[in-house]
């Protein structure tokens, strides 16, 4: 199981490590600066951290010595001839390139620009083909003023394929390493749209899309309007109907079992808080046919915690999970969510976390 946790907060990077005594705060970096995304690259041990300075713009740093020292690296930026003269507001998701591209990184941004680095973040290339797809003027922001890319999933079987998800512009697929893009994702339903437009693929708000490591055609989605599962790498989606609330942001899938997934329900969507102040995690182990509400160790009264879309992660074992909330609470489970341990209740608002 993974013993290190990178927590992206409103007030910097906070690293927790587990030793014989349990989880302890091991390091902090970028104190006072919002951290919006991290990536830990198992191929070379590098840690990447995306920052959003309140005044001075988004930046990226890399550590090659654990989290002891960081060096500022290239900052993905729109070219001056990009249509609309955009500027990056926020880096929203940062992913390593998958097994076929050892030095590659992907960065998804608000506005919805996609960038790729082939040199460990020293330089970045703008993926112009996605920015220039017809109909982009119809996209709209979800939670932010501008549209944003929040989920990036390279296909581990194919160096040219990648699926990404955009709030709000649905799910997109490339099969030629970003040279061209297809809007996919039939089956989603956006009930925030007028009735005759609810099935439009580019009007969907997939809050988060994740892929099973051993069964890459299986993807899970927490959508603005419910939970979905795909068995064909995002081409089509089937609505899953867990009992109770099916609004939320985060979803995780077991890396070795495509039928096991976790959601963090909240009351939809004008409230966005736990129902009756009681938090739980929803788990299915049979592809969504049945669900267990996992409450042990989570607050069951007076809780206002909301877990953002990158605030839930499962490690490579599939047994250890971590979850962080906007209220600054961090929990870890070692038994697939059956029980949760509160690691710290007093962190800054947590935007994202991941093992690594």
């Amino acid at each position, binding site marked *: 199981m993974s013993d290190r946790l990178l927590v992206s907060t409103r007030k910097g990077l906070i690293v927790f490590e587990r030793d014989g005594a349990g989880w302890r705060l091991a390091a902090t970096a970028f104190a006072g600066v919002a951290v919006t995304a991290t990536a830990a690259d198992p191929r070379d041990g590098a840690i990447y951290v995306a920052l959003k*300075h*309140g*005044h*001075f*713009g988004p*930046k990226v740093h890399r550590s090659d010595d654990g989290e002891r020292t960081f060096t*500022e690296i290239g*900052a993905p*930026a*729109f*070219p*001056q001839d990009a249509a609309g*003269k*955009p*500027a*990056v507001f926020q880096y929203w998701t940062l992913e390593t390139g998958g097994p076929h591209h050892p030095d590659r990184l992907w960065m998804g941004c608000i506005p919805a620009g996609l960038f790729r680095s082939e040199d460990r973040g020293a330089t970045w290339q703008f993926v112009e083909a996605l920015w220039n797809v017809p109909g982009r003027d119809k996209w709209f922001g979800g939670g932010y003023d501008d549209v944003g890319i929040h989920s990036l999933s390279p296909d581990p079987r194919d160096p040219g394929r990648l699926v990404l998800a955009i709030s709000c512009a649905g799910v997109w697929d490339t099969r030629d390493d970003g040279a061209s893009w297809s809007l996919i994702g039939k089956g989603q339903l956006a009930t925030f749209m007028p009735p005759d437009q609810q099935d439009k693929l580019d009007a969907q708000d997939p809050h988060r899309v994740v892929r099973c490591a051993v069964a890459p055609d299986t993807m899970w989605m927490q959508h603005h309007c419910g939970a979905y599962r795909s068995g064909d790498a995002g081409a089509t989606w089937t609505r899953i109907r867990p009992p109770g609330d099916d609004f939320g942001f985060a979803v995780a899938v077991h890396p070795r079992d495509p039928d096991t997934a976790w959601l963090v329900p909240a009351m939809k969507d004008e409230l966005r808080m736990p129902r009756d102040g009681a938090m739980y995690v929803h788990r299915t182990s049979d592809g969504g046919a049945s669900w267990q509400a996992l409450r042990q160790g989570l607050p069951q009264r007076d809780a206002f915690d909301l877990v953002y879309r990158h605030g839930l992660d499962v490690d490579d074992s599939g047994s250890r999970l971590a979850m962080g909330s906007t209220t600054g609470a961090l929990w870890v489970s070692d038994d697939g969510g059956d029980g949760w341990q509160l690691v710290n209740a007093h962190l800054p608002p947590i935007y994202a976390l991941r093992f690594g």
Partner: protein
Amino acid sequence: MARIHFTTWLRSVVPDGPVVAAGGTVGDALDTLFIDRPHVRGYVLDEQGRLRKHVCIFADGARLPREAALTHPIGPDSELHVMQALSGG
């Protein structure tokens, strides 16, 4: 040449300020500075060359309107201050 002072928030980026730079406008002086210190540019301007939304510049004691800041004329003895705007939190 104008002297450009930077907020202490940018001490890690400009550790040796104030910096002297030539130019007939605020934008010209900053461009001169960015030639030797390209790294500073992204902290003051966005990638389209616009002054960042939550950066403010004072020239000779006057806070400059954001849209007009870079074209504001300056003299050889001007004192510029590049500060964080409190609108940015």
